[in-house]
């Protein structure tokens, strides 16, 4: 299908790239239909709204820079998207590219969870005080290697 994307203009996307968010994202509850695409730049992805070309989120795998990241995938709240097998779970953090003079950050408190088996997604909120809405990706990557 043809999708108008914020980053790359109009592209061809496969139906298998479609992800449906029954509850939308926090603050964007009305927008439920997205496609997940690889960014041209590793290791990022885009979560691109199908309905609104200007609505897109940059995503990153949080385990790349926080190997100690953990979230309870057996929580009943994930039943919203029907997750039964941990292998079905994709976890992403939403990335914020700041203005001048600050590092690129990722939101580890409100990760995006996608069930590969049924292509449903949700944004969940983690109660663990270790995870905040702004984690400096490069700083934490360096710290994880120290």
């Amino acid at each position, binding site marked *: 299908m043809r999708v108008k994307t914020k980053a790359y203009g109009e592209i061809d996307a496969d139906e298998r790239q479609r992800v449906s968010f029954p509850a939308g994202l*926090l603050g964007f509850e009305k927008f439920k239909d997205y496609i997940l695409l690889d960014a041209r730049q590793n290791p990022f992805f885009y979560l691109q709204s199908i309905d609104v070309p200007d609505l897109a989120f940059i995503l990153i795998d949080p385990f790349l820079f926080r190997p100690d990241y953990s979230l309870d995938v057996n929580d009943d709240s994930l039943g919203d998207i029907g997750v039964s097998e941990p292998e079905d779970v994709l976890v992403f953090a939403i990335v914020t590219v700041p203005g001048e003079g600050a590092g690129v950050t990722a939101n580890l408190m409100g990760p995006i969870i996608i069930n590969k088996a049924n292509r449903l997604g949700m944004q969940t909120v983690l109660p663990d005080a270790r995870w905040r809405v702004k984690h400096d990706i490069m700083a934490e990557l360096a710290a994880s290697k120290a």
Partner: protein
Amino acid sequence: MLILSRRLNEKIVIGDDIVVSVVEVRGDQVKLGIDAPRNVKVFREEVFIAIQEENRKAAAASGMQLPLMDIPERPKP
């Protein structure tokens, strides 16, 4: 908005299966106990607001050029 007054140890029932109890009152701070099914999310308001706000900032900036970042990929399983 429904406004109710409660005293210490009194409760409020919401829907069929959510109960809010006043557990402690100390000065201007009220400690609340919340009994709810596991699929009902309960959070301090400022947490939701922080995530909404961060989502908004992320969406506003997602058209910007992605910076070149040297992040090794994880080995694929």
